[in-house]
């Protein structure tokens, strides 16, 4: 998260020494340069240090990583200010952690914005719709603050057609729009973007829900002249498009590198596009089958040569309604592919083998479990450079047949030693295979195993899956993301807490025995940022054990666990800067299924740090347990007062209490030498610096 705290950065206590030794640094002086009573011989009269700031600006502009920038901004006020001036990409990990007003006030020269909204479990219908994450307040604020804005990236946000209209209107230089897992808009909104954004280079709609407003949005792109379009991704749009307009658009877009079609584009139409755009690097093939009413064998175009002509193709996806007869058309490009997504293609092992056999350079492979363990063995034999594998289930139910199992996982671990990321859905798994993967693939950063049957043990030994996941956290030293499943006891969490020191994201479902499980994790994983838990027996005591850490996290989600409303309130009281949302699934209550209607019963706890306190757009089913907004929200403030004097700085501490919005003095400490200052943890928390 880019914004940690609104309070002034902590005083650089060493600044006093530096100031004494040389008059060059001005780190101790505020921007206003106001320090009275100084002996001119000891210190030069302070002036806004324009030279230093200019130098800083020129250096800091090269910092691109937001984590580096966050660190730089904490050095001192001067650095904070300059960093804010030079930050051109603004990343908001949780749209409710900071208000648009505050964000735009701090960063004045932003050209690209990325905002994330809903938590991930909302994708699986666990969050009631209408929960929030609206883009609307952001678009208004961005519009007035950054008229030069070029890029917007949104993930899990609700965006309306109206918002898209404003985007197009407010930003004449708008170049890139990427919407991932968003909803709330339709083809009407897309039409406005297409029509008005003359500089548009990227329009990427990824796994978003796009309402069909019966609008020919492709037709709204300017009809004449060359476009600057580089990327057009719309494979998730579930409505037909005007193909002729698309064809004309592709012809007029010589810079087009990425094109991902939706399932309403037939293979015949794909051919026509491919011959007009052989420069493509990323292609989503649409349905990859014949249009309705077209017969097989009627004067078919030469698909093979169309693919062969695309010499730069490295990423292939689509195959939404694949007619497997045509699969051979892609053989020519396989040797160059680094990414292949067959996860919508219902193909068997034999059919996969014909393709994968050619894919020596493959690094990313998404596929359906219909290829069975045999298909995975074939992939393992050929794709020695594989970094990311995702195996999705064709039948996502608990009791369906499992075409892939530990056999496939073992094969992959043996063949693909460079594996960094895996997502694997299966019905049956063994500890042995998971342990094997932990040993064979030391570069693993992301390990997500979903054994679809809840509470399912190792199907060969009958043991819980504790040892398997334990081996993963122990042996994969680079692991940052973990999703667990199957029968798991508290022991598994003990391993995670003990070894998972780099874990940032943890996903837990139907696991653990008691509070201890969650405690192990909260006490053991210092880097934990995102924790999502469902249907596990963790209660209030476990929740309490994370108090020291919640401010360092982006969010905590717990649904259908053993929490009580009092437990949640306790957390809220202890951590004023945490927004604690408690959500009831009304639909369930209305169905009258709760035998005893427990008034306070709830389904979801969702809490996150925020500078703004409870949000004002919360729907009625969300209860906020956060402290009321009361100015700063602190009950005790500790003032650090610096007394400039003859030869050195002296420091005083005054402790004030806030009562009914007014300050009353609590205690004070006479000025002391720096070394004698005792900063207790408690005092540091409430520290406000005064110069």
């Amino acid at each position, binding site marked *: 998260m880019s914004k940690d705290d609104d309070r002034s950065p902590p005083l650089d206590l060493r600044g006093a020494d530096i100031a004494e030794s040389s008059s060059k640094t001005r780190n101790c002086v505020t921007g206003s340069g106001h320090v009275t009573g100084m002996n001119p011989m000891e210190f030069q009269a302070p002036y806004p240090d324009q030279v230093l700031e200019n130098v800083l600006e020129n250096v800091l502009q090269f910092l691109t990583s937001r984590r580096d920038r966050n660190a730089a901004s904490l050095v001192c006020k001067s650095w904070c200010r300059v960093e804010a001036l030079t930050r051109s990409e603004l990343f908001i990990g949780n749209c409710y952690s900071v208000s648009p007003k505050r964000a735009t006030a701090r960063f004045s020269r932003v050209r690209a914005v990325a905002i994330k909204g809903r938590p991930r479990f909302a994708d699986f219908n666990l969050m009631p719709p209408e929960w929030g994450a609206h883009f609307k307040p952001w678009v208004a604020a961005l519009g007035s603050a950054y008229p030069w804005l070029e890029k917007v990236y949104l993930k899990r946000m609700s965006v309306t057609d109206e918002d898209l209209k404003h985007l197009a209107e407010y930003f004449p230089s708008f170049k890139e729009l990427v919407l991932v897992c968003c909803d709330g808009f339709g083809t009407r909104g897309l039409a406005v973007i297409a029509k008005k954004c003359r500089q548009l280079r990227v329009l990427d709609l990824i796994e978003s829900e796009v309402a069909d407003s019966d609008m020919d949005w492709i037709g709204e792109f300017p009809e004449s002249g060359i476009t600057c379009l580089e990327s057009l991704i719309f494979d998730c749009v579930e409505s037909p498009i005007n193909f002729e307009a698309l064809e004309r658009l592709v012809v007029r877009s010589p810079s087009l590198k990425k094109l991902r079609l939706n399932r309403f584009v037939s293979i015949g139409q794909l051919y026509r596009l491919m011959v007009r755009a052989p420069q493509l690097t990323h292609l989503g093939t649409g349905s990859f089958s014949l249009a309705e009413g077209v017969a097989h064998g009627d004067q078919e175009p030469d698909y093979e040569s169309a693919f062969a002509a695309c010499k730069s193709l490295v990423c292939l996806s689509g195959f939404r309604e694949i007619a497997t007869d045509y699969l051979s058309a892609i053989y020519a490009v396989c040797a160059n592919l680094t990414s292949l997504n067959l996860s919508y293609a219902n193909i068997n092992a034999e059919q996969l083998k014909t393709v994968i056999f050619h894919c020596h350079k493959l690094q990313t492979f998404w596929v359906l479990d219909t290829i069975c363990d045999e298909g995975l063995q074939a992939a393992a034999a050929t794709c020695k450079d594989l970094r990311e594998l995702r195996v999705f289930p064709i039948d996502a139910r*608990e009791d369906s047949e499992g075409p892939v199992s530990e056999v496939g996982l073992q094969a992959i671990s043996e063949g693909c030693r460079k594996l960094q990321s895996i997502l694997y859905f299966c019905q049956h798994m063994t500890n042995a295979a998971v342990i094997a993967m932990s040993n064979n693939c030391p570069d693993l950063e992301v390990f997500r195993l979903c054994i679809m049957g809840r509470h399912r043990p190792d199907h060969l030994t009958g043991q819980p899956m504790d040892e398997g996941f334990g081996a993963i956290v122990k042996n994969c030293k680079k692991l940052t993301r973990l999703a667990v499943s199957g029968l798991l006891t508290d022991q598994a969490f003990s391993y995670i807490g003990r070894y998972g020191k780099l874990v940032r994201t943890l996903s837990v479902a139907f696991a653990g025995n008691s509070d201890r499980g969650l405690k192990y994790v909260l006490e053991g994983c210092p880097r934990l940022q995102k924790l999502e838990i469902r249907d596990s*027996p963790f209660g209030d005591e476990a929740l309490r054990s994370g108090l020291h850490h919640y401010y360092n996290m982006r969010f905590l989600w717990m649904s259908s666990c053993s929490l009580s409303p009092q437990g949640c309130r306790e957390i809220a009281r202890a951590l004023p800067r945490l927004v604690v949302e408690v959500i009831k699934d009304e639909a369930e209550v209305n169905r009258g299924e709760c035998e005893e209607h427990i008034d306070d019963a709830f389904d979801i706890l969702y809490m996150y740090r925020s500078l703004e306190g409870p949000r004002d757009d919360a729907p009625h089913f969300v209860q906020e347990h956060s402290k009321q907004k009361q100015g700063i929200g602190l009950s005790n403030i500790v003032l650090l007062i610096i007394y400039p004097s003859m030869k050195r700085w002296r420091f005083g501490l005054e402790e004030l209490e806030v009562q009914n919005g007014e300050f009353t003095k609590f205690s004070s400490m006479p000025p002391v030498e720096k070394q004698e200052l005792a900063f207790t943890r408690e005092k540091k928390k409430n520290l406000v610096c005064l110069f």
Partner: protein
Amino acid sequence: MEKSLVFEKDLNLEATELRLGLPGTKESEKQTPSTIKSNKRVLPDMSEECGSKDNSIVSHVKKCDQEVAPPAKAQVVGWPPVRSYRKNCFQAKKMEAETTGMYVKVSMDGAPYLRKIDLKVYKGYPELLKALEDMFKFSVGKYSEREGYNGSEFVPTYEDKDGDWMLVGDVPWDMFISSCKRMRIMKGSEARGLGCAV
């Protein structure tokens, strides 16, 4: 150290467990304590399958269990964690394949009444032709691409989406079942035009 109670039933401890209660009474299946509220939300798909408008979904699930073979557990909301878009993609196709049959009328020259068959039931032409032979008590002869059906008075034909009468067997099976509207087993002189060697 606590032991997980959940997999006890695999060790069949139930049989020797001491319990308070009358002998012969069965305790309901142990579930994790967190399931007071979970397991109640059932996928709306289940209720749609059963086609009833009853609000109480819990009893619904029980009905479905009896009608549909075997889902042992009610589906839980959001599990497995696959996005609905993906689930719907394949579920729609599967349902289509499983529930809606592909019934076409079959007439035979000289037969007093027509029959109806479900094309989805057959995996290919050999099965279909065999079924027709059994149904109408005739023999279809040998198929060759060049000459059609040899050695028989009877020729199986079908009407496709365009309204044309075609010889059964010429196009790939998948295309056949998607384009076939009805079938007619021709006999005698009419059949000769289609390469009958009689």
